[in-house]
């Protein structure tokens, strides 16, 4: 992805201005053959410096915006970049194929794997196609069916989590959204193969944990994972949509918060200025980290993997020391 295609977030305005200047100077340079390379260099250094300043101190609310950035690599980008011979598999064998829940088999660095994940889409058309990454019960049942497959053929499972939440709608309730999520969590816990889950953007509540009850839970540096959306929390607890920043801070939903709280295992550093600025780099890093965790997990038997996962979650949130 080219720099100039990236949508600018509100808090990135100063950087966008510098980048705009660089772009214009480059056009002048190309058009009139004047050498202004030193000025371009200076501005580029400035933009890097500003990015670094900004991105090392992102507030939780800013991180939430980065996590939901439309140009961020999504589930299918990771699959395309990391999984060879990917064959998408369709349907829950009961009702329908849920496009929001992508899944299939493929080869990850020479090892056959089962991949599942929510796809948000990258433009209006694909967003509608993937229902904005909000899965319905058939999506969670499709995930379970694929986990059955993984167990049967002893294939590790990789999940890319990126959803604002499970779809709230009449038909989703009719077909048992609650039961579908509950049984998906149960299915995760019963897996007898290595299972690594990565929150690549937004980990929205029950819809996320349904495929994130894994042996290893990893988060990208600027991703979020929360029990409720900041907007939902602000409207319920503060009764005001304007309090969204306060709600975001109170919820402790950043990767750094979750690591401190002992919920996740590792944070994957993003390229300067966020994953949206360098798809190839972040996809490569994510691949390396997944490979390392899968290797570590591969020494355990299926029973051990299941027991370790169960023990891990039985302890979640227990005997927790107070954060400062």
């Amino acid at each position, binding site marked *: 992805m080219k720099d100039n295609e990236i949508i600018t977030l509100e808090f990135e305005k100063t950087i966008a201005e510098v980048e705009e200047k660089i772009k214009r100077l480059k056009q002048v340079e190309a058009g009139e053959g004047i050498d202004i390379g030193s000025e371009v260099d200076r501005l580029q250094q400035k933009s890097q410096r500003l990015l670094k300043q900004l991105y090392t101190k992102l507030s939780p609310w800013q991180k939430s915006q980065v996590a939901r950035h439309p140009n961020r690599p999504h589930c299918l980008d990771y699959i395309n970049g990391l999984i060879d011979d990917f064959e998408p598999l369709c349907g829950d064998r009961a009702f329908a194929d849920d496009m929001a829940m992508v899944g299939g088999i493929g080869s990850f660095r020479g090892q056959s794997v089962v991949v599942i994940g929510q796809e948000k889409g990258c433009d209006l058309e694909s967003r509608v196609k993937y229902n904005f990454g909000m899965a319905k019960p058939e999506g969670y049942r499709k995930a379970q069916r694929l986990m059955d497959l993984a167990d049967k053929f002893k294939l590790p499972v990789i999940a890319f989590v990126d959803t604002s939440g499970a779809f709230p709608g009449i038909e989703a309730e009719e077909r048992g959204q609650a039961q579908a999520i*509950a049984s998906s969590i149960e299915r995760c816990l019963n897996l007898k193969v290595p299972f690594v889950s990565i929150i690549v953007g937004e980990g929205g509540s029950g819809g996320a944990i349904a495929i994130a009850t894994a042996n290893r839970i990893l988060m990208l540096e600027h991703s979020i994972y929360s029990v409720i959306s900041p907007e939902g929390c602000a409207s319920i607890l503060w009764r005001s949509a304007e309090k969204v920043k306060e709600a975001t801070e109170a919820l402790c939903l950043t990767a750094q918060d979750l690591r401190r709280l002992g919920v996740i295992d590792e944070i994957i550093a993003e390229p300067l200025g966020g994953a949206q600025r360098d798809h190839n780099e972040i996809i490569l890093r994510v691949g390396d980290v997944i490979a390392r965790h899968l290797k570590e997990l591969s020494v355990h038997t299926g029973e051990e993997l299941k027991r370790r996962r169960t023990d891990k979650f039985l302890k*979640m949130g227990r005997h927790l020391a107070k954060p400062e």
Partner: protein
Amino acid sequence: MNWIADFVRPKIKKATSKEIAENLWTKCPECGQMLFNKELEKDAYLCSYCGHHLRLPLKNRFEMLFDDGKYKQLALPKLVDDPLSFKDSKKYSDRLKAYRRLTKNDDAIMVACGNIGKIKTVVAALDFTFMGGSMGTAVGEGIVKAVDFAIKTTSPLVIISASGGARMQEGILSLMQMARTTAAINLLKEKNIPYISIMTDPTTGGVSASFAMLGDIHMAEKGCIIGFAGARVIEQTIRETLPEGFQKAEYLREHGMVDIVFERTEMKNKLVKILKLLLNKKD
């Protein structure tokens, strides 16, 4: 200090007398009739006009369920309060204190053990009056302990849900309780010990999307609300009015999510019948 005491005392008296007056009657949310509280308690919190099932206090439900109303409450380990130091318009720690005073319970769960139809049974029940029965680490702990005890004593487990979902004030840790309680229920299932999930008004969000929907048998109290997303959220998302009876117990049965919809008066008999059949016990 005398003048302070004199000044404060009348205020307290006033509040108490007002409270009693307010607590004499309850309005039926279904038909709007005023119900005399003493009668209501005698009638198991059923409306004497329309039969509507009002929310039943935990103690009353335990007394209805256990033989001769006798049960032993299990002490639960105390966890760190307010792990995120959460504050909205009020501090979460202050909210906890207020609800503890109100309910005389430490959190939104009670676990008890006793005989139900002469079968030793462990019952965990969520208390809607404690922060909407929301599930945080303490409720998760209660479910885990209830499962432990059921396994240790090889007794069937009954969980009575009444909850709006996960407790927002505990953030991600409350979300984790969905996986934690599911992991506990899994241990019980491995031992082939019966787990009956009884859903009461309301059973929604993170509670319905975890242990409540993982029972061997699902029982739901007549007319109660069961669902994943709240009706208001759904209406806002799809901008359509919801169908009649949406997310009611009967609707859930119709859609294959609940086995039995029961009237409160037959709750115990139904439960005993199921436990006896599952355990192949004769009278």
